[in-house]
């Protein structure tokens, strides 16, 4: 029973943090410091794959009409706009792929319970969200230059404390791109990365023994899927109505607490 509740909690956390700009990795690092590494059971690869598949599918459900429209006439001359959109998605993925594959060991070293780094990065997320809320004249469309910058923001978001959705949506809005288009681009650009990472994890044979119960995996999947749909829709609404400042305040508070803890301990 406890295993099922744990799986549901993990699913809800994954569903919320995939879309809301609060940095799951930053919170995990803080939790490790406060609770100690031993008290946190690292979720198995199977559970990780299951939860990521759930949130990726929830993104596809929410944006299914956009994906369908954007996939029309791809090989015909009238599909030029759609082809450009997918090209921009591919361009935006390049920085994260280079950093994720080329600097894997260096990235792992950053996850060493460094509260100063986490706190500073949470403050950076807060500043980005605050200024994104203040931004005006958000009418532009995503171009090559913008796709590269948003892609760089996504790559930087590998750092613990920087929210991926927060960094990409904020940088996009600050570049003058329409708010709804920013949210859509941010969530669509990560789908190929999630599935690519999942396929790599599944096929590269890095297995150990897993005694995860199938019922726990199902519960985690459903919890992440349902929470993911709700959080994704909520996030789009918050971005459109310029209400990211609440997350900015929250990230500021947690960031300041993390920095104070670093200097006090």
């Amino acid at each position, binding site marked *: 029973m406890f295993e099922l509740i744990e799986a549901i909690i993990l699913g809800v956390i994954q569903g919320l943090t995939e879309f809301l700009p609060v940095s799951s990795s930053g919170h995990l690092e803080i939790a490790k410091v406060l609770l100690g590494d031993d008290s946190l059971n690292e979720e198995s690869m*199977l559970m990780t794959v299951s939860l990521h*598949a759930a949130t990726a*599918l929830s993104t*596809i459900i929410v944006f299914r009409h956009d994906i369908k429209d954007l996939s029309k006439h791809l090989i015909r001359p009238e599909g030029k706009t759609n082809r450009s959109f997918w090209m921009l998605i591919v361009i935006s993925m390049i920085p994260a792929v280079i950093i994720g594959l080329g600097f894997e060991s260096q990235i792992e070293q950053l996850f060493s319970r460094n509260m100063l780094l986490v706190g500073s990065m949470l403050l950076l997320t807060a500043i980005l969200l605050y200024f994104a809320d203040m931004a005006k004249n958000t009418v532009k469309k995503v171009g090559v230059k913008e796709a590269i910058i948003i892609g760089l923001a996504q790559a930087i978001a590998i750092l613990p404390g920087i929210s991926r959705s927060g960094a990409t949506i904020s940088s996009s809005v600050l570049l003058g791109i329409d708010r709804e288009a920013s949210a859509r681009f941010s969530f669509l650009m990560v789908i190929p990365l999630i*599935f690519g990472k999942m396929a790599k994890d599944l096929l590269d044979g890095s297995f150990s*023994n897993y005694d995860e119960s199938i019922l726990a995996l199902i519960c985690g999947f459903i919890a992440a899927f349902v929470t993911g749909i709700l959080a994704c829709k909520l996030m789009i609404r918050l971005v459109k109505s310029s209400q990211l400042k609440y997350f900015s305040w929250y990230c500021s508070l947690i960031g300041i607490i993390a920095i104070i803890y670093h200097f006090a301990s």
Partner: protein
Amino acid sequence: MANKKKKVVVTASKEKKTVKATVSKSQRIDQSSNQRVLVFNKSNYLLMLAGLALIFLGLLLMTGGKMPSPDVWDDNIIYSTRRTLIAPILILAGLAVEFFAIFRK
């Protein structure tokens, strides 16, 4: 003639009121909830369930791999074809079915 006209107008307005009240309170709610619920049709849902079944079957096949004792190390247990080939293919196939189910008209 004038009396007849008046009667007709009064009756019509009463009927309109009752019809309006019925539509707005019950049918509108039904219509909106139906529109919300029926995002996909039956075949989409069936395909989604089939995809999920494939994913969970793959996850089920991937479980295990534990050695019978701490002194034993057997590559065939941990890196068996079931866990390294069949299970991942089933999971990825399940995801492909989910894609198809979501976008199928």
